[in-house]
């Protein structure tokens, strides 16, 4: 019974190809991430912005590579000795006859010679590792010396200003902001709060707000009633009468004296 070993072998090959595909995709993504990080650092933008393109590229690249490589045709392409045999065996694992069994044995024999290196492009791997090293060194150097080619935020700000044009009316943003004021001195009694904190859009009618000078009356004199108390007396505070240990009495006394001076 050779069916079980062949199924296990096919699974093993698929897993090996999957691991290599994921590794390659990870390496590609890492290269892209580091290059993006370098560019961001040189333009004074936060380095972690590079995570966005890297994540997007990593996701799409991995999906496409897995879809492309996670089949036995890819293995056959890399191992010409197994051309057309591997897929035939995989498609006929449920069959058992003399020829199928013999083919399974041939394929198993052929698979023994399959090496992981068949699926790795050493030239590409070397190029990527060199790129990774060079870009990493550049990032460290640039960060250590604070090298910046341009401040991207400044550029954006300048562009924003340019975009408005010379004749544009600049409205002070601060005047349009809603500020919640808690002071009763200005807004009077707290019961006004019952109106809530929602911004109220008020429009002043110029007709009503215009001052008619002819209707302005001369100032009126008002008389105020005095409400002064008849007698004023002072008493000591409870804390003053507390039993304070002798050692501290002087300190407390000088403390209150100093308070009296400042007030």
């Amino acid at each position: 019974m050779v069916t079980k070993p062949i199924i296990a072998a096919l699974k093993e090959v698929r897993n090996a190809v999957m691991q290599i595909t994921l590794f390659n995709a990870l390496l590609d993504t890492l290269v892209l991430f580091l290059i993006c990080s370098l560019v961001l650092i040189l333009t004074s933008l936060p380095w972690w912005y590079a995570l966005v393109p890297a994540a997007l590229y990593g996701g799409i690249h991995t999906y496409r590579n897995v879809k492309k490589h996670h089949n036995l045709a890819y293995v056959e392409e890399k191992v010409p000795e197994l051309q057309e045999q591997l897929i035939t065996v995989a498609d006929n694992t449920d069959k058992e006859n003399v020829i199928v069994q013999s083919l399974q044995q041939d394929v198993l024999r052929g698979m023994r010679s399959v090496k992981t290196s068949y699926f790795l492009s050493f030239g590409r791997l070397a190029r990527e590792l060199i790129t990774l090293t060079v870009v990493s060194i550049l990032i460290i150097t640039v960060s250590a010396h604070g090298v910046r080619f341009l401040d991207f935020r400044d550029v954006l700000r300048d562009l924003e200003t340019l975009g408005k044009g010379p004749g544009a009316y600049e409205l002070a943003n601060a005047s349009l902001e809603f500020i919640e004021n808690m002071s009763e001195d200005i807004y009077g009694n707290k019961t006004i709060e019952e109106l809530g904190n929602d911004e109220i859009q008020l429009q002043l009618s110029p007709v009503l707000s215009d001052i008619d000078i002819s209707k302005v009356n001369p100032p009126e004199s008002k008389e105020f009633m005095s409400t002064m108390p008849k007698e004023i007396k002072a008493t000591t505070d409870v804390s003053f009468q507390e039993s304070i240990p002798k050692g501290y009495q002087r300190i407390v006394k000088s403390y209150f004296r100093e308070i009296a001076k400042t007030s």
Partner: protein
Amino acid sequence: MRLEDTKKTFDHLLHEMNKVIVGMDEVLKQMIVSLLTNSHAILEGYPGLAKTLSIKTMAQLLSLKFSRIQNTPDLMPSDITGTYIIEETTGGKRTFKFQPGPVFANVILADEINRATPKTQSALLEAMQEKQVTVGNSTFKLEEPFFVLATQNPIEQEGTYPLPEAQSDRFLFKIRTDYPTYEQEIEIVNRYAEEEKRVSLKPVLSRDELIYLQSLTRQVPIASDIKKYAVSLVTSTRQKKDMIEYGASPRASIGLVLAAKGRALLEGRKYVSKQDINLMALPVLRHRIILSFEAERQNLHEDDVIKQLLK
């Protein structure tokens, strides 16, 4: 016979056939595939291209019962199937006894099949499809293996009756024989126009061995993609309306996959390759399609259109 020995057996068979036949390797291979798939084949070619000789040679190399039917317009169905004859016993009692015709053999050479009348041609139909013969009220089972290897001449028009589509569909292959090359023709002249050398042929395959090889042929595994490719090829003959008026039937799909399996076994492979399908597409499909007027106007042949489909 061991599985490993099959290739040697086929090589030996081809080697023996090449002692008689010159430069017809592909034709001989297609004939062997026809045997392996337990199917019938029709050889079409101009006169003098060793069609009959190659079938006779093959029959000699198989330890099988061989019979030849020379088709003519006056050939009757009973001349093929057999008939009841009156037999007189020693006591003077007369009884009907069935006298089997030439169809009761393993390998039938139906020479110049298109010269027989449609009625006689159709007498072969039941034998080819059902592998049985009905005469009167009795049905007789034919012995396995049973092959009809027919020949026909494409240039004879007078006094010929082209095979109806239903009957030509019964043949797995329509094998075309072509003229030999100059060097091959020199070799043919050397062999047959000079001193007569008798080539002694010994049977290479016994009946049981052939039946075993036939069972092995069906066991050859095929990948799903290649199977789909074969079926797509056959179905495309039904979709290419500009060139093909009538496409091939599903029987062609079965035949193509089976023929590819036979070809793989013949080449000593344990799996079907895409190349096997491509090689077998021409003999399997060429007699199963009817070209459109447009294709004929462009002077295209069946093979040209099939080659277009293969691209």
